[in-house]
C-alpha cells in the first residue's frame, strides 16, 4: 500500500515538474530608447542562462553588455567598463537573439547603449525553455517511479513463476 502511494506520488510530482518546466517566463520585456553616452540598465535573475532577443528600430545599431550584480554597482559608481568582468557583450548590432553563457544562476544586469542619436529598441529576456533544473528533477522523479514499477513487475512475475 505504502509503495503504491509512493509510486503514484512520484508520478504526479514528476508530471507536475514537467508541466512547470514548460511554463513560459519573461524576465524583462521592454520597449526603450537610449542615446549616445547614456545607458539603460535592466536587472534580471536567472537560474539558467536566459534567452535574449533585441530588435533595434529604423536600421540603427546598439551595443550591450551583461555584468554581474557586483560589477553593475561598480559601473554605476563610475568604474570604467574595461575594469569590469564582462560576461557577454555585442557591439553595433541591429538585432540579436540567443542564449549567452553567463554561468547562471545569479542576478545580472544588462546595459544597453548606442553610439548614435536616440535609438528605439525592443528587449525581451526570457528564461530558456524548458526550465532545465525543473525538467531534470521531473525526469529523475519519473525515472525513479518507472524503476519502482519495473521492480514490482519483475517481483510479481517471479512470484507467479514460483507459484
Amino acid at each position, binding site marked *: 500500500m505504502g509503495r503504491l502511494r509512493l509510486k*503514484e506520488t512520484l508520478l*504526479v510530482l514528476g508530471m507536475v515538474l514537467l508541466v512547470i518546466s514548460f*511554463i513560459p517566463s519573461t524576465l524583462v520585456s521592454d520597449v526603450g530608447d537610449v542615446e549616445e553616452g547614456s545607458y539603460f540598465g535592466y536587472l534580471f535573475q536567472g537560474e539558467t542562462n536566459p534567452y535574449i532577443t533585441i530588435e533595434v528600430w529604423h536600421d540603427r545599431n546598439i551595443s550591450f553588455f551583461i555584468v554581474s550584480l557586483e560589477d553593475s554597482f561598480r559601473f554605476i559608481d563610475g568604474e570604467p567598463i574595461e575594469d569590469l568582468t564582462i560576461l557577454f557583450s555585442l557591439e553595433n548590432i541591429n538585432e540579436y537573439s540567443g542564449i549567452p553563457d553567463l554561468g547562471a544562476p545569479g542576478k545580472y544586469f544588462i546595459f544597453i547603449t548606442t553610439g548614435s542619436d536616440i535609438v528605439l529598441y525592443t528587449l525581451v529576456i526570457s528564461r530558456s525553455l524548458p526550465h532545465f533544473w525543473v525538467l531534470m528533477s521531473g525526469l529523475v522523479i519519473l525515472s525513479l517511479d518507472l524503476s519502482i514499477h519495473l521492480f514490482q513487475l519483475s517481483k510479481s512475475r517471479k512470484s507467479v513463476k514460483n507459484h
Partner: protein
Amino acid sequence: MPENRKDIFNSIRLERNISYPFPTIVSIVSIFIIVAAYSILGIGRYNMSFYLSPGWNSTAITEKLVESVNTVSSRAIAFPILDFVYVVVLLVPLLIAFNLAQGYSNGQMRTLLSYPIRRRTVLLLKSGLVILLVSSSGTLGVLFSLLYFFPFSISLNSFLILIATFWISVSLIASTCTLLAVVSRSARITAFVGMGLWMVALSDLSMPYTHPLLRYPLFPIQVAVSYIDSSVSVFFREQTTLFDVIFGSGSALILSVALLILSVFIFKRQEI
C-alpha cells in the same frame, strides 16, 4: 471527560483517511505548486530598470538598486500568494462542502458520532484539516518554487509575514464555510454560497473604496502584500504599515476563531 492526546491523534488519522484519500492530497499540493510556479515565473515583468544619463547620480541609483534587489524575493512570494487567494475561495468551500456538509446527508456524521468521538472534535478536525491542508500546500508551493527560481534569496521576514497572513486568510474562509455547512447542512449550499460570497467579497470589498476597518480583517493577505510590495500600495494610494498588517491579521484570526466557536456551539446542539 477530556480526550487524551492519543485519542486526538487517532481521530486525526481517521479523519484524514476518511476525507483525504491519497490522490486528493497530492492533487491539492500539485495545484498549489503549479500556481506558485506560474506566478513566480511571471514576476520578471516587474523587475527593475533604470536609465543612466551622462553625469548620473550614482548614490540614488545604487540605493534604488539595492532596494529592488532586496525586494525581488519578497515579490516572488507575494504574487503567488495573491493568486492562491483565488484558488482558496474556490477550493475551501468545496472541501468543506464535501467533507463536512455532505456528511449530514450520506450518513457519515451519524456513523462517526456513534463512535467515541466528541462532536467538537469531529467539527474542528474537519475544518482544521481543510485549513492545514490548503495552507501547508500553499506554503509548500511557494517554498518549492522559490527554491527553483529564486534560490537562496528568500527574505525570511517577508516570507513569515506573507505565509502567516495566508494561513489566517485560509482559516477565515474555512471558518465561514464551516458555519455555513453547519447551519445549512447542505453540500450544495455550502459550496455555492461559500464560493459566491467570497468571490463577491474579493471582487467588491477588496477595492480601495471599502473602509479599511472592513477590508483589513477580511483580506489580511492583501494588507500584507501591500506592506511587502510597494507597487500594491501605490494602487491603494496608502502607506501600509506593520500595524495595519497586525490589525488585519489579528482581527481576521479573532473573527475566524469566533466563527468556529459559534459553529461548534450550533453543532453540539444539532440533531443528526
